[in-house]
């Protein structure tokens, strides 16, 4: 069954290896992240490797769809995967939720039973998930599942810390950063993890390569409290969990929280309105990188954050 997007792949930048999947929160709540992603790719000189996926929709959000109907969740996720499949791209996500949702979906689609079920549904929208045909070094023709990547993983493993380090123009010397990884970064699925879920290092090392100091704090790998529908259902409960997290971070003397997930960011940022604690700004990892790479802080959309980061901006945001 020919896909309706075939026309697109011709005019789209098919040379791009990666398709950028922003998800829902980044464009609709923190557009600054979207902006900083573009800045980073430009400053690192690798923007021709990346392209937007204009047809992409909600991943869909696992806390709602995976929890209420796995079939619908898998079909909707497979629809997005089909788009990446037609574009022959790796799907790069910036959100732990999208990352986990897609990774889980590719894993489940390796089950022929589920694949058949999903393809029967996708037939209605003229799509079919097969995976991307490739030829192995031994010359065998195989269908490879869509590669789902977290942007942190792409930065660390594909682009490399050295390239980031050499592109830094505003070294964040003396900035104490508390890294919050988030659960679905550490444990996206039952089978796959990007790195050791007990001792993750990639975000810490990226932060360090920007010149900042990633500080250790108690229960660093704990949950922000928002995921799985908790924030939507019992907002107080999510706040109570976040409070513990924030307390540990404040006690460790951090200036800033950095996370690779916009949903954790949303929770840790907005929850501070409700809590009587010292306020501490929360950044997405891309925002911090953009800042260090010399992005204009006035055009990073930091106004969208509940907790202002004026102090950090005035200290490190040397305008270019």
């Amino acid at each position, binding site marked *: 069954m020919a896909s*309706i997007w075939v026309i697109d792949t011709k005019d789209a930048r098919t040379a791009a290896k990666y398709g950028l999947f922003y998800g*829902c*929160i980044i*464009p*609709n*709540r923190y*557009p*600054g992240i*979207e*902006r900083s992603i573009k800045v980073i790719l430009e400053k690192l000189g690798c923007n021709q490797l990346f392209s937007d996926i*204009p*047809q*992409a*929709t*909600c991943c*869909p*959000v*696992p*806390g*709602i*769809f*995976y*929890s*209420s*109907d*796995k*079939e*619908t969740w898998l*079909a*909707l996720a497979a*629809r997005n995967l089909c788009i990446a499949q037609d574009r022959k791209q790796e799907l790069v996500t910036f959100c732990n939720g999208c990352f986990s949702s897609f990774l889980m979906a590719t894993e489940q689609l390796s089950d022929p039973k589920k694949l058949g079920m999903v393809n029967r*549904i*996708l037939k*209605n*929208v003229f799509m079919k998930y097969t995976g991307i045909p490739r030829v192995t070094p031994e010359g065998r023709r195989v269908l490879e599942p869509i590669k789902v990547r977290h942007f942190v993983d792409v930065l660390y493993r594909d682009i490399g810390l050295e390239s980031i380090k050499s592109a830094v123009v505003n070294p964040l010397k003396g900035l104490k950063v508390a890294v919050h990884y988030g*659960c*679905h970064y550490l*444990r996206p699925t*039952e089978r796959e993890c990007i790195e050791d*879920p007990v001792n993750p290092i990639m975000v810490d090392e990226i932060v360090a390569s920007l010149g900042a100091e990633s500080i250790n704090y108690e229960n660093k790998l*704990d*949950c922000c*409290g*928002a*995921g*799985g*529908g*908790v924030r*939507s*259902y*019992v907002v107080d*409960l*999510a706040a*109570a*969990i976040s409070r513990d997290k924030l307390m540990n971070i404040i006690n460790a003397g951090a200036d800033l929280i950095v996370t690779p997930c916009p949903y954790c960011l949303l929770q840790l940022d907005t929850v501070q309105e409700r809590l009587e604690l010292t306020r501490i700004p929360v950044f997405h990892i891309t925002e911090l990188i953009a800042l260090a790479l010399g992005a204009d802080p006035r*055009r*990073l*959309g930091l*106004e*969208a954050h509940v907790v202002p980061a004026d102090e950090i901006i005035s200290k490190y945001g040397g305008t270019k």
Partner: protein
Amino acid sequence: MGHAKKEFIISEKERLLEEVPIVDEECDRDFIKAIIEMGGGDVQVCLQCGNCTGVCPVSLKTENKIRNIIKMCQMGLKEKVLSTPWVCATCHRCYEHCPAGMNPAELIVALRHIVVRELGPPPFVVSISNNVANLGQAIEISDKILDLRKKIGLNEKPFDERYRSKAIMDIRTIMRATGYDKLIGIDLGD
């Protein structure tokens, strides 16, 4: 003496628990099968060691200890389990620690499936599903963010209008095909 005794009984009475013993009628042994059908895994493997509760961010803050939920499933206390609130961050910490190799987070997901089918979906599921069906995205954009996007030099609309209507059509078709619209009770028009 008699007076004091009487008072003791009255004052204690208010503090007495209303609880009654759990009886056989409440235990639905087929519930375990229903959970397995929904992909929740075998709850019988649980040793009740409590490791999951110890790592669970929600168990610390509420009365719903995850270990208790598993125990209730083992006993088949369906009504009690289904009436516990929909609170699990699906952080999978429990799965990571579980020595029995069980995945309590998947159990919760299966229980949610049962709740949605038997008691109806909670309101936020309906509203977010509606968003996805109408906007293609889970959250609605505010005017403030629209302005901000323009200011920082991004496309004003996050979702390119050229692709949006087709994408939404796809989503609705998929939802109709899986019966999601009926399950959640959202109106997709025709």
